[in-house]
Structures are given as structure tokens and as C-alpha cells.
């Protein structure tokens, strides 16, 4: 089995008729219009109000083993679950499993599954399903691009009974429990085997609070409330996720009442919304982390000096930038991690905004002020205000006399430079963003700090050695203090200029009551309440 064409199965989306009648909003914006979408009947039958969500980027795949990017979690986080996941406060909590035990060597995890955990087709979740989910996730023909993170480290999953299983790890992994929710979704063995590989991607079945109804690529995805969920029964009936890439148009959706909730509102649009009486802006801190990576790999030898990198950190007033460029929608950062991340909440002395000192250090280090620093930015936008941010950073560098030369690249070109195998020595500074999917920092550290990692513009054998040991703990406390030391070291090394973590911003109609799960960039919708 490969990922190649499966001609038989695109019927679902081709055969679908265009969305039905569309009510013309004639009255007040506040009047939440019945969406008029075809599936409204289902929702009505359940007596729960439908929810229309406007999203900017389409889901790529519905198969949790084929995830292509963070945005796909918009779907996975609502339709699938792992054994454990994070609760609405962002804390680790049991999901499909109800409890677990760990062996003292940290290599054996035993899980007890919930008795009332069911798949959307009504089947109970069994230990066989857990084993199957692992097997499918590591099967070479599945080509799960995320296998390396978690499931590849699993030596075996033993079925101990209908509701009990044991996971054997190849090596100790302190991040294992944290990652269960986002890297290993439980799928139905019976459904996957009977439907076949191809159909699974079109009719996925999970255990999450919402069940998949239909999808029209680039237009919408429909979900419905899964009322037999073990605990998180949604307040809304049917959920339609509309795909509207243009920010302004997407925002207009909630202004006209066509959608109840709009996700990914850029900060500049959010600011004036706060003053509109019929709408509300919902914000939550996210793990999306904005920084400027410094090419410390020697292309520009002066940047290999840590004091130079520290001085660059001192030159920038991130608070002003946050206030002006981001209109305050974010949290300033002094460390190369988001505040909620494990081990990140250390009290180190921030560099602060010290332009004079920065200049002094640079002069002493022999910095050639006349040679411009070549900066690469992300021009077109997946990250809000990316262009302004880099320009702002350049302005502060200019103020202490550093010349800059900015190149903005579209996302594809930018990621090719940023994540390229060979780091371009002609790039001195590069705008970067990194999003953690959960509060475990290992993914971030391994991918952006380790020598040779795809997003790493930095190399230090000392740090590499620390990183290698990072997950080799079984006591969370020991690991926490280790991570603390690691971050302190990284702060001192200053391989990048941390700026801030952005807020996830949503616009919702007044009828919506919802508290987004903190620290995730996608909306988990089961706790959305909608009046009348």
C-alpha cells in the first residue's frame, strides 16, 4: 500500500451537492441565522443548536497517521483521542484510558481503558484497537511522518485483556505521556480493516466528541456531536467548519451572522472587534512562539560568538513591538520557549532592552557595523504580522547602527530556507515561528536546537549532549530540573532572539460561550455553548 491514487473513493466528495439554500441576512447582525446547511436536520433532531465555524486553512488529511501540519489538528483534536490527552485547562488528563501505571525503569506503561469509551460507529474501544492503532502508525506502508516522535519508540503493545494493555518502550522517554494525546490517536481496528485503507481516509472513525459527517475539500467539513462520548458530550449539535482563507472575509462571516465562531483572527482585526457590541473576541495564550533565529553556524563568523548574539537580544525592545505590531495580542518572551512549556518557567535574568550596552558589546567583539546583516522574513502569511515583526526587529537593529538587508519570502520559499538541510551561509537572521502541540518541550528542542536538526541554525556539542539525555528520565521532578538547567544554558547561549508567543484569537457572536483550551493553537470545540 502506498499513498498513490485510489480512484474508487472520491465519490463522496464529487457526488456531494452544493450547499443548500442560503438565508439572506436581512435583519440585525445579532440575529444568529439558521445556517441553512443541509445537515441542519440532524442537529435539530438532537435538539442541539448547530455551530458554524469559519477557518482560514483547509484540513489536509483526515487520517491521523498521515498528518501533514499543525492545522490538521482542527480536525483530529475534535474527532480523535489518544489514551491520554490534555483537559480544558491544558493539563495532562486521561482520555480513552482511565488510568495508567509506569514501571520503575520507565519502559513499561500499563493502561486501563474506559469501559464507556466508544468509537463513533458504536463499537467499544478495546486493547486490540490500541495495539492496532500502534501497528498502523508504525507500519512502513502507512508512512506516518510522525512515527519518529512517539510510536517508533514503542517496542510492543501487549493486549492484557479487553480493556487492559501494556506498552513496552525501546528506551526511556519522559515525554511519552505528554505526547500520547497529539501523536498517537486510537482508531477502530474493525472499521479500518473492513473499510480498507483508502476508505478510512474518507470516512474516519475516532472516539472524540465529534463524529465526522462529510467533507468537501476547500469548502467545508461537517461534524456532528457524538452523544455517546465517555465524558465530553458537546453542547452543540452539528458543526460546520467553513474554509475561508481571506482574513477580512472570514471575519465578515461572524459580523454578518453567517458563522458563529471565526478562528485565526489576525491581531489587527481583533483590536477593533473588541469595541463591537454584538461580537466578542476570545483569546487564549498559545504555544505559537515567534523568534528570530541567528545563524550561528559560521556563515558570518561574528555571529558564532555568544556575546554578539546576546547583544543582539539586548538591542530589541520586544515589548514595544508586541504592543505596536501585535497590538498586544501575545506574551513577551525572554526564553527560547513558551511560558507554559515544561521547564520553561525558570526565573532567569532577561537581557532586557539595553541598546547602549548592546552597541558596546558589539564594538568590543569587533562587529562590523557597515556590513549589513542579511535578514530573511516570511512574506506571505501563515503567521500574523510576520512582515511587520521582522521590519520592527530590523528597525531596532538599525537604531544601534547595524545595517540590515531584508528579503521577504513566501511561505514555501521561507520554509525551504528555514528548514533546509543545508543552512544558507548568506542568511544571518531569519524570522521563525515554532508551535508546540503540547507542553512537552522535547519536540521543539530536538528540532530547533540540536546540531543538524531541520530548524536548527545553531550547533553546540555541549547542548547536543544535554539534549540526548533529555528524555532519559522517569521522575518528572528530576527531568524538570534538568530541563531548567538546559533552558538556562540556552538562554546564556542565545542562539535566537525570542520575541513572544502569540495569542490564539477567535471572534464569536454573543450567543457563543466558550473557553478555549490554553496553549493549543487549534480550537477544541466540545465545550462550546451556544444560546438559543
Amino acid at each position: 500500500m502506498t499513498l498513490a491514487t485510489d480512484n474508487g473513493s472520491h465519490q463522496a466528495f464529487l457526488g456531494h451537492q452544493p450547499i443548500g439554500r442560503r438565508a439572506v441576512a436581512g435583519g440585525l447582525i445579532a440575529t444568529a441565522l439558521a445556517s441553512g446547511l443541509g445537515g441542519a436536520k440532524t442537529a435539530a433532531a438532537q435538539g442541539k443548536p448547530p455551530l458554524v465555524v469559519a477557518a482560514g486553512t483547509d484540513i489536509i488529511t483526515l487520517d491521523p497517521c498521515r498528518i501533514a501540519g499543525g492545522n490538521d489538528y482542527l480536525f483530529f483534536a475534535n474527532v480523535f483521542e489518544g489514551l491520554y490527552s490534555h483537559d480544558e485547562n491544558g493539563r495532562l488528563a486521561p482520555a480513552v484510558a482511565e488510568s495508567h501505571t509506569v514501571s520503575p525503569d520507565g519502559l513499561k506503561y500499563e493502561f486501563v481503558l474506559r469501559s464507556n469509551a466508544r468509537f463513533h460507529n458504536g463499537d467499544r474501544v478495546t486493547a486490540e484497537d490500541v495495539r492496532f492503532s500502534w501497528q498502523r502508525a508504525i507500519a512502513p506502508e502507512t508512512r506516518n511522518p510522525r512515527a519518529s516522535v512517539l510510536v517508533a519508540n514503542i517496542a510492543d503493545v501487549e493486549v492484557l485483556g479487553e480493556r487492559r494493555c501494556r506498552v513496552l518502550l525501546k528506551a526511556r522517554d519522559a515525554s511519552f505521556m505528554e505526547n500520547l494525546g497529539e501523536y498517537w490517536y486510537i482508531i477502530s481496528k474493525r472499521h479500518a480493516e473492513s473499510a480498507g485503507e483508502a476508505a478510512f481516509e474518507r470516512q474516519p472513525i475516532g472516539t472524540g466528541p465529534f463524529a465526522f459527517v462529510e467533507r468537501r475539500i476547500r469548502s467545508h467539513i461537517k461534524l456532528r456531536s457524538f452523544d455517546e462520548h465517555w465524558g465530553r458530550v458537546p453542547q452543540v449539535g452539528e458543526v460546520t467548519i467553513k474554509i475561508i482563507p481571506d482574513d477580512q472575509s472570514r471575519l465578515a462571516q461572524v459580523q454578518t451572522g453567517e458563522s458563529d465562531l471565526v478562528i485565526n483572527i489576525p491581531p489587527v482585526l481583533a483590536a477593533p472587534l473588541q469595541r463591537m457590541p454584538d461580537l466578542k473576541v476570545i483569546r487564549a495564550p498559545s504555544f505559537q512562539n515567534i523568534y528570530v533565529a541567528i545563524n550561528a553556524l559560521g556563515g558570518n563568523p561574528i555571529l558564532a560568538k555568544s556575546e554578539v548574539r546576546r547583544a543582539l537580544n539586548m538591542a530589541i525592545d520586544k515589548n514595544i513591538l508586541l504592543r505596536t505590531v501585535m497590538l498586544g495580542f501575545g506574551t513577551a518572551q525572554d526564553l527560547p520557549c513558551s511560558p507554559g512549556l515544561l521547564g520553561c518557567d525558570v526565573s532567569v535574568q532577561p537581557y532586557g532592552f539595553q541598546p547602549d550596552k548592546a552597541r558596546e558589546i558589539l564594538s568590543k567583539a569587533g562587529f562590523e557595523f557597515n556590513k549589513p546583516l542579511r535578514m530573511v522574513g516570511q512574506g506571505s502569511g501563515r503567521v500574523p504580522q510576520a512582515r511587520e515583526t521582522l521590519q520592527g526587529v530590523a528597525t531596532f537593529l538599525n537604531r544601534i547602527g547595524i545595517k540590515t538587508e531584508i528579503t521577504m519570502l513566501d511561505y514555501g520559499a521561507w520554509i525551504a530556507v528555514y528548514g533546509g538541510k543545508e543552512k544558507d551561509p548568506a542568511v544571518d537572521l531569519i524570522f521563525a515561528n515554532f508551535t508546540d502541540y503540547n507542553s512537552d518541550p522535547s519536540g521543539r528542542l530536538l528540532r530547533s536546537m540540536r546540531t543538524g536538526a531541520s530548524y536548527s541554525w545553531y550547533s553546540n556539542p555541549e547542548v547536543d549532549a544535554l539534549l540526548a539525555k533529555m528524555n532519559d528520565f522517569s521522575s518528572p521532578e528530576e527531568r524538570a530540573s534538568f530541563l531548567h538547567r538546559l533552558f538556562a544554558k540556552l538562554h546564556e547561549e542565545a542562539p535566537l532572539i525570542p520575541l513572544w508567543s502569540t495569542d490564539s484569537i477567535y471572534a464569536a457572536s454573543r450567543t457563543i460561550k466558550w473557553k478555549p483550551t490554553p496553549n493549543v493553537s487549534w480550537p477544541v470545540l466540545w465545550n462550546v455553548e451556544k444560546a438559543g
Partner: protein
Amino acid sequence: MTRVAALNASSWWSLRLRWRRRTGRPRLPVLSMALCILLIFAAVAGGAIAPFAPDEPDFTAILAPPFWMEGGSTMHLLGTDQLGRDMLSRLIGGARVSLLTAGAAVLVAGTIGVALGLIAGYLGGLVEAAIMRVVDAFLALPFILMALAFVSALGTGIGNIILVMILTNWARYARLVRSEVVSIKKRDFVLLARVAGVRPMAIALRHVLPNAMTSILVLAVLDIGRAIILESSLSFLGLGIQPPDVSWGLALAEGRTYMSVAWWLTVWPGVAIVLGVMSFNLVGDWLRASFDPRGVL
């Protein structure tokens, strides 16, 4: 693949008559010509007349409104943008980039197109067929689609945007010139030049080109407007000019998200585009009306 009307019917004599008749009543053309000159002046003088550097942020004056509004100041007549950059200076700086890209693109695309059109029209036969099929292929793609594909292939930035506009534009000149050449080369004075023993290349350059020049000129002037719009559309889609360069289209695209907070970020560049395009179009139309009664290009 489609017909382009040629100018051949109107002799220079009648052109002059029409020209004179027109100049009797100068209104809109003069105005738009003045505006064109003003824009070109702004583009050339640029830094000398702008109150600030167009890419100089001022974090103390973020999103300042135009001077007559509450909170506005005469320091920033047209207000400032999200980074506190002076809008007036950005418009002046934008004129430079917008006109430079448009002008350079039209000039080079025109030269290439004219050269190929001349070759195709004059040599005929297999050379003509080959060139015209390539022209057709380029013309068969919707303009902006091809521009997008080229931009994503070549990357953004002024140089590349110019290159893209050249690549998307040259074919129309080639087609126009070829059809002109085909009609001009049958005219008596070209036959006479052959009788006089003038070499084909000299005939093409001395007789055919000057007579096709009118329609080329008209197309070129109209194209400047088109190029400005193309550039702004590409910028709108995030694939146009990139900061720290500034163009009207980029300013509009960047300001677009602020439309509900600070209308002046979108209105001024929008007005600049509309006025700029309109004045070039009017000049072009006026040229066309003076030269080409059919008005089909």
C-alpha cells in the same frame, strides 16, 4: 489566435488632422497628462520631496490618522501606518516602485515583444509559426495565473516582479507588432524600398517599425496602468513587492487588514492606484483616439 485590429487604414495625414482637431479641446487628457507627469516626478524625485523615509517606523505615532482628524498632526498629513510610517512618504516611495516596475516591465516587454513580432512578421514562414505558437501559449494562460506561477517560481522582490511582468506581457506586443508588420509590409512604400534595394533588416527598422510605433506606444501606455494593477493584485495575494520596499499595491495589501481600524491605510494607496491607472489609461485612450479610430487593441 485572435484578431487584433491594425491601424493600417489611417494614413499619417488623417492622423494629424485628428490630432489637431483634438487639441482644440484639451480637458481630461491634459489633466491626466499632468497627473502622469506629477506621478513620474514623484517617482523620480522620491526622497527629495517626501517628508520622511518611506520605510522609517516611528513607534510613537502608530496608526496616526490624517491631519484633519482627531489625533492627527500636520507632521503626518495623510496619517501613519501600523509601524508609524508616514503615509504620504509611503505613497511617494510607492509611486517610485509602482511606476518603476510598471515602466521597466513595459519597456523591456515591449522591446522583446516588438523584436520578436518584427522578426515573425517580417520573416514569415516557419519562424513566424514558431514564434506565434509560443505567443499563443503565453496568451492562453490567464495573465494573473501565469504571473502567480512565475512569481512563485522566481521569488518575490522588485526585480522578479519586473521579470514576471515582462514574461507575462511580451507576447501581446509580439502579436500586435506582427499583425502590424503583416499589413505594413504590403504597403507601397515598403515595396518601393525593396525596389530601391534596401536590405530587409533596414526596411524592418526604418519603415515598418516607425509605422507600427503608434499602436505600440498606445498599448504601452495602457499597459502601465495594467501593470500597476497586476503588481497590486500580486501584492494582495502576498506574492508581490515585499517589505522593506514599498509600492502602492503592497501598502494597500498591508493596510487591508487594518481597514476597519484605520481606513487611511487602504484608502490612500487605493486612491493612488486608481488615479495613477486612470491617468495613464486616459492618456493611452486619448492617444488611441488620436491614432486609432477603431479603438481596439
